[in-house]
């Protein structure tokens, strides 16, 4: 079991309030991602759950039991760090066995569990090496191995893939998702990368300046963002926003259109907004056009990769009328 409940959790460092007041309910077996820009308090929130930081006020409950004041060693959670944080003086085997040794597990069971973890994570031939003789991806696997052997109530991941190169990151992302499907243990995953958040999460917590902006499934966040911040943060490339008279036509303070929700035409007058292509980023499968729209500013448009554009081309855009997001003056979705 591994349900995690936060009740009015507050964290301040001296005068600085990092997390004003957060309440969350994470269900057993759920994969929850904390996402937000740097400095939004997502790592601090994870560290509060881990017990590596003390809460200033509020309560943290694991399976209904209040663990607010309990040290990390007593919470039964496992954490994977961005820096891997392996013990450099121990072999891979001893690294993975360390939590079991701390729990005074009999040696026979330790060997059994370490071998199982090594097989699951393809680490069999590296067991007697030291961490410094491993590549980044292998080190991260050892860190995960160390986390799974103790069968924790929940796994906490603190930006575990940030130090890996792009190709490996995609691989590890899949491996972690598969691991979750296999173990069905609660996982909390912190990242600033919204693609990781969208692809891995059952539910996403979007954080900004220590506040929860929205908590919902990836598609819910994409389709029904609660406010302008979430709308701008989720989705890649970012949503385009328009203020002023154009927004007032839709009875809103501001409107938002995602780059994929435009109809694009090169025929003169065949579109609602006229603009000039500034930069065309061709990815092969898609092309992202950065279009200077007359009177509205720069907008990003996603189009298929077959058409080619160059700087200075005239284009005409029509936003999909059913997919225009409307926001009030406070930035809340209408």
């Amino acid at each position, binding site marked *: 079991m591994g349900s995690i409940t936060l009740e009015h959790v507050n964290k301040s460092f001296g005068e600085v309030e990092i997390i004003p007041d957060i309440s969350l309910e994470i269900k057993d077996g759920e994969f929850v991602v904390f996402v937000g820009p740097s400095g939004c308090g997502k790592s601090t929130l994870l560290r509060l759950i881990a017990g590596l930081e003390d809460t200033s006020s509020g309560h943290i409950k694991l399976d209904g039991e209040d663990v607010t004041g309990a*040290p*990390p060693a007593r919470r039964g959670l496992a954490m994977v760090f961005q820096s891997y944080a392996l*013990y450099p003086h121990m072999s891979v085997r001893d690294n993975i066995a360390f939590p079991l040794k701390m729990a005074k597990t009999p040696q026979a069971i330790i060997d059994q569990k370490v071998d199982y973890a090594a097989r699951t994570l393809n680490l069999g031939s590296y067991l007697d090496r030291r961490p410094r003789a491993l590549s980044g991806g292998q080190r991260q696997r050892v860190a995960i191995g160390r986390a799974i052997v103790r069968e924790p109530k929940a796994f906490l991941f603190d930006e575990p893939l940030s130090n890996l190169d792009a190709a490996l990151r995609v691989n590890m992302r899949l491996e972690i998702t598969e691991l979750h499907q296999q173990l069905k243990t609660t996982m909390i995953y912190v990242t600033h990368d919204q693609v990781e958040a969208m692809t891995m999460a059952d539910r996403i917590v979007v954080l900004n300046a220590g506040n929860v902006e929205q908590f919902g499934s990836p598609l819910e966040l994409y389709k029904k963002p609660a406010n302008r911040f979430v709308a701008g943060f989720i989705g890649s490339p970012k949503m385009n926003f328009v203020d002023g008279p154009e927004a007032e036509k839709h009875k809103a303070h501001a409107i938002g259109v995602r780059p994929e929700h435009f109809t694009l035409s090169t025929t003169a007058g065949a579109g609602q907004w006229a603009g000039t292509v500034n930069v065309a980023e061709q990815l092969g499968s898609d092309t992202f056009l950065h279009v200077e729209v007359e009177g509205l500013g720069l907008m990003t448009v996603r189009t298929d990769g077959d058409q080619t554009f160059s700087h200075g081309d005239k284009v005409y855009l029509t936003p999909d009328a059913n997919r225009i997001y409307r926001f009030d003056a406070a930035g809340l979705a209408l």
Partner: protein
Amino acid sequence: MARNVSVQTKTGFTILAWAVALLLFSPILWTIVTAFKTEAEAIAAPPTFLPLTFTLDNFFDVQDRSDYIKHAWNSILVSVGSTLLGLVIAIPAAWSMAFAPTKRTKDILMWMLSTKMMPAVGVLIPIYLIFRDLRLLDTVHGLTIIMTLINLPIIIWMLYTYFKEIPVDILEAARMDGAELWNEIVHVLVPMAIPGIASTLLLNVILAWNEAFWTITLTSGRAGTLTAFISSFSSPQGLFLAKLSAASLLAIAPILLLGWFSQKQLVRGLTFGAVK
């Protein structure tokens, strides 16, 4: 940065370096050769460099008159004992300052260091009186305690600098893995800091070994270390150059050998973390 250095310049500097080194080493060298001469030859004019008659008598005389073995044993007990005791106190202290600092940590570190700047004579009277009342005068354990106290600031400072180099993530990982504080320090922090701890240990053994002020003032016959031994030897036997040389050689030999064999470790420890 590569530089072009001519062979002449290189040779010149090599000769200069050797000359300076020999100049600095010459008193010690003279002591070494004199220790193996007879008393008559030691004061002969003009002096001889190598002994004409090689003798070990001086060493046996020194042992007979002043019991070198006892003093050397005291030196070992005090220097090793005070360093180990110091480490036991300093490791937790440096842990807390490196990994759980407060607003006052920097001030405390400076304050500890400042005690080393005060002249020892300043606290001689109170410490002497305390030692007298606690019956610690001329005891090995009393000397071990005072040696621990005077070197503690250096031990804590050195360990603090080494500990600062250890990523806090790794200690946090240990906490997450179920390690309580004791296990965190014993199984993770100490093994990772071994090079730093080893050089701290070596340096402090040397410092305690060479300490003279407190050993001479707080001991007489029973608990005297080699520094007390050599000072007590120099006045009555001062005219017997060969015996005095033998005594000096005996006093510095153990620590000289220790320093010689551990110089690699010492240098590595002292520059630990200087280059990332």
